[in-house]
């Protein structure tokens, strides 16, 4: 359990430290170290979980089970690789004069703040604290979205702030309702603890829980980016600094979905109707389809990939909603591979827009000829995210498709349509950027592409074979969520 406290403590120190000294020249490297230590702590935590099974802290304040342990490691990992990417990236931005010392301090401090919020969301056992942490994540990142202080970025940040704030307020209402339902059957003190709620789920009033779930879904769903609550997402992703987009897409959305799924487990325990699942399926499918169409109309490279995130979150929500071991397993896997792939893509996207000096896709051309690594990274990343094997995204989409065919065959044409359209939307934009001749005045930039290679390598590995411990966690989590395992 010490590991868990450590995981929370390190970013907390980070916030304070960088708030004071974030403008120094080697802060980027220091940030990497902070994240690296954090990753070590999470790995330690993971080993503990692997050896001892589910961990519950003494005050029951923290719960580490197979469902969140891998997300914690993933968070730390993506946090680390993104910090590796952000170090030269931010240095470059500072050279260009886009940033001042003060803002760099803010950036690094809030980076750690965001990581703290993420860890807290995942580790906490208390649904209220989860909400607080989720709101904290919004607060930490909202100033980062407007870091460049351009009118667009301020607008995006404002929208992000208001929409997510209002949205997440609904989630609090849902949490209060949940609490209300819980205090009627259990003791007041521990009634918001998930582990307690989960044990008593069958005693809870299903009607209240269903209403509570609606609020939760709308609330956290805003953060997941479910259509039609998604409007903030492309704006925030496109206007903030790219490392931020990478962690937003790779981590924040996952964690919001994590929160929804935790709640769904409670609702499923209380009520025997599939209402929660059906709502999630509906939202998931809608997001997936609408985002697929949105992809076709994008002009900004980061907006493009943020819509792709919406699309994938839609798939995951859909799969979680469908329930069943296969779909749940697929959704868990998809969370992992999507995070890895999408953050890798954002890294290359960041460098690509630095190469071209713009985020406008019309002006980015011939990346492979200009800087082959960035070009190939973007292309391969897109291939991976589009769901081509042997990358892991394929595995999860394959399972989702098969599960859908099994349970809701009449939905498969929609899935087929959506994947096809989304694919076309992505590639019609990505291809011209990476291929073709090098335009005038486009030169390579200093870039560290190890994160991309590592991420894509991992995704490839997950596509070819899922390592034993991960498979074990996935199947345990599947058991927890859906009641049976696919094994």
């Amino acid at each position, binding site marked *: 359990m010490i590991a868990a406290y450590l995981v929370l403590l390190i970013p907390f120190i980070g916030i304070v430290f960088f708030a004071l000294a974030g403008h120094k020249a080697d802060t980027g490297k220091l940030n990497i170290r902070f994240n690296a230590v954090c990753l070590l702590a999470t790995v330690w935590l993971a080993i503990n979980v692997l050896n001892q099974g589910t961990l519950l802290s003494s005050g029951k304040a923290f719960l580490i089970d197979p469902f969140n342990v891998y997300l914690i490691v993933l968070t730390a990992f993506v946090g680390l690789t993104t910090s590796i990417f952000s170090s030269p990236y931010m240095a470059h931005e500072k050279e260009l004069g886009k940033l001042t010392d003060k803002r760099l301090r803010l950036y690094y401090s809030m980076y750690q703040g965001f990581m703290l919020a993420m860890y807290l969301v995942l580790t906490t056992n208390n649904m209220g604290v989860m909400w607080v942490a989720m709101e904290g994540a919004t607060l930490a990142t909202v100033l980062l979205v407007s870091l460049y202080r351009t009118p667009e970025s301020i607008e995006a940040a404002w929208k992000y702030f208001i929409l997510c704030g209002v949205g997440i307020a609904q989630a609090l209402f849902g949490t209060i309702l949940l609490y209300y339902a819980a205090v009627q059957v259990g003791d007041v003190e521990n009634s918001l603890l998930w582990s307690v709620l989960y044990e008593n789920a069958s005693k809870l009033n299903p009607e209240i829980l269903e209403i509570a779930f609606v609020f939760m879904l709308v609330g956290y769903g805003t953060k997941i980016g479910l259509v039609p*609550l998604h409007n903030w997402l492309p704006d925030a992703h496109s206007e903030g600094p790219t490392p931020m987009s990478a962690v937003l897409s790779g981590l924040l959305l996952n964690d919001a979905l994590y929160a929804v799924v935790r709640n769904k487990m409670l609702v499923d325990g209380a009520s025997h109707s599939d209402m929660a699942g059906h709502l999630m399926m509906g939202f998931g499918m809608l997001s997936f389809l609408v985002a697929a169409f949105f992809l076709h109309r994008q002009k900004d490279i980061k907006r493009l990939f943020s819509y792709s995130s919406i699309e994938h979150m839609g798939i995951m929500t859909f799969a979680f909603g469908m329930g069943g071991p296969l779909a749940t397993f697929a959704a868990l896997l998809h969370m992992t591979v999507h995070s890895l792939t999408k953050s890798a893509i954002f890294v290359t996207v960041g460098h690509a827009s630095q190469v071209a000096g713009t985020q406008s896709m019309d002006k980015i051309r011939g990346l492979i000829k200009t800087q082959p690594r960035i070009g190939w990274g973007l292309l391969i990343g897109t291939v991976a995210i589009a769901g081509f094997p042997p990358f892991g995204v394929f595995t999860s989409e394959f399972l989702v498709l*098969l599960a859908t065919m099994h349970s809701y065959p009449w939905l498969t044409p929609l899935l087929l349509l959506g994947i*096809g359209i989304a694919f*076309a939307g992505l*590639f019609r934009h990505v291809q011209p950027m990476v291929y073709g001749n090098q335009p005038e005045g486009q030169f390579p930039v200093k870039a560290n592409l190890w994160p991309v290679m590592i991420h894509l390598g991992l995704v490839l590995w997950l596509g070819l074979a899922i390592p034993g411990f991960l498979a074990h966690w996935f199947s345990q989590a599947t058991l927890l969520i859906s009641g049976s395992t696919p094994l």
Partner: protein
Amino acid sequence: MILLLAYGAVLFSFASGLLALMMDQRQVLLGLSQYWFKTFPHNHQYGRSVLEGRLQEAHYPDALRQAVFGLLGLSGMFAVLAGLGVMVGKEAFTDQISLGLPWLPWHVRFDSLSGFFYLIIGIGVGAVSLYGPGYVRAYDEGQHPFAALGLFTGLFVSGMLLVLLADDAFFFMIAWELMSVASYFLVAFQHENPANRRAAFLYLLMAEVGALAIILGFGVLASFSDGFTFDALREAKLSSTWASIAFVLALLGFGMKAGVVPIHVWLPEAHPVAPSHISALMSGVMLKVALYGLIRFCYDLIGDVHWQWGVVLLIVGTVSALGGILYAMMQVNLKRLLAYSSVENIGIIFMVLGLSMIFMDNGQPQLAALGFLAALFHAFNHALFKNLLFLGAGILQHQTHELNIDLMGGLIRRMPHTSKLFLVGCMSISSLPLFNGFVSEWLAFQTALQVDVLDNGVLRSLIPVAAAALALTAALAAACFVKVFGMIFLGQSRSRHCDNAHEVDDQGMLAGPSLLAGLCFLIGIFPGVIISLLNSVAGQLLGQTLPNDSALGWLWLAPVSAKQASYSPPLVLIAALIAGCISFWYLRRNPATVMRRAEPWDCGFGGLTPRMQYSCHAFTMPFRRIFANAWIVDERIDKDLQGAMDQDVAAIRYQLHIQDHSWPRLYEPIARGVDRLARQVGRIQTGNIRTYLGYSFATLLLLLWVVS
């Protein structure tokens, strides 16, 4: 042992891909070799000198290319051996590789059907590996890095081989998509051309949609069984409706890859722009893998085929065959033409396969086996001659830097070897007797003519009509390839490039096609070899082989019974030789009649110019008039007028634009629809935060209303 050979083929192709990555790593290799010889200084003196010679800067690229293609060749050889071995052994091998999902390792099964397609791939890859080193040398390393080309070629080949090995849906799809993606990168290889990018995009998009359809097809089967292994899927008990849905999905998916009309459009876009040896593999081999998928899916996994599916295949095949050859005829780009001709041949294969299904469901397993055999035989033949023709086209492109048939001409004198090889290809594809194309077509006719055994009147009248369409296709194909050969090799040269063209220097570039041409001829004469191999496939898959096809001895081909039909290519060859020799001898014995060369007849207008010749468009004009509705023809004649009253014609420009019907009828509406929908959907994102809040509000109210 045989399984090891099969794995070896995969590994070698994979290794060749990885080796290609070493193109930029000469220093690393040099360091490695020095380290190696420093550690073990005593032995390998000879090897050391050779290796270090190769690693010198001047020799390195060539040596590496040789090595990469050498590995590919080994892979091909192993594939051939493995394929032959499993077909002769008539035994299926299974294995598991501990990759994949935790509860689903990759299942491997190598049986006669896989073996046969292994053989096809092996031959194709073997020919390409001979041809490749010479061909790719022309690429500028800075512009078109060999590393990418070699890597994806290796992956492409290993992907195709893995598809054949796969014995569960998941592994199958991984291998399938590996094949698609790798070939996508190959199509996009020369990506500075917009045509390449467009083709690659279209190709990948259609591959993706097709793959999804296949996954769903597997999904249907998996819904009725417990697991994704093919063994489990075979056990699936499907209702007739679901089986048909699965079939349609499979047809969509595999048909998209195989290129049946109207889902063929990626083919004529992608094949012309890929490097020629890759187009050869794609057209000659990859389409066969799609065919394999369909056969595996329908005959093996679903099991009991319905005759209605056969009718669907028959119709789709007929349309593809006719459409393919008609479109092919109108093309002026040689590789595009060949691509359309692939559509035609795939159509023929599908037709025959459809016949086989019809017979199968009507309780005629023997005739089903005949049709099945004819289909596979044609697939094999098509692999040979299409590979040959694409490699030939590659030579032409390599030597003349031109793919436009209308700008070639007279190359038979400048490129004698190439022209002979190409002629063999043209004759095979036109299904002329003595060549392999004819044998499979003959078998196809034999299958169609057995229609008398059926009870269903509709089928009885439909199949002969299809047979006549097949005849029309064959005749049109002959016309088409007369055009191809005539325009390219005969007549007078139509452009400067062709004037300066000469035969290729690289022996390998001729060796590859020669191998294929030789096989085309040999199999045309001794088809029994392939048929006996195929009998093992049919025996394993359908449980039915052809009756003793050797009743008349190995010289004869009598698929049903000697009474009904027989064909003996060796005898025909002998007879032809006798007739030819006699006439030759008789007519040339008089020394006074030595041939004299003179100017050709020019109607007294003073010399022929190349522009007087019939061009492609002129040659096909009668067809254009007769089958006017098969294309969207945009013909324009512009006249430059001059002189008083504008009465003198100074110059005439003729423009002809021919388009596939499927674009404006099918694809453009879809593209427009998506764009329009996307525009509508885009209106959600108004930019006004109050609207967004409104969405959120409305969603909340709606959901609350729903649950309460």
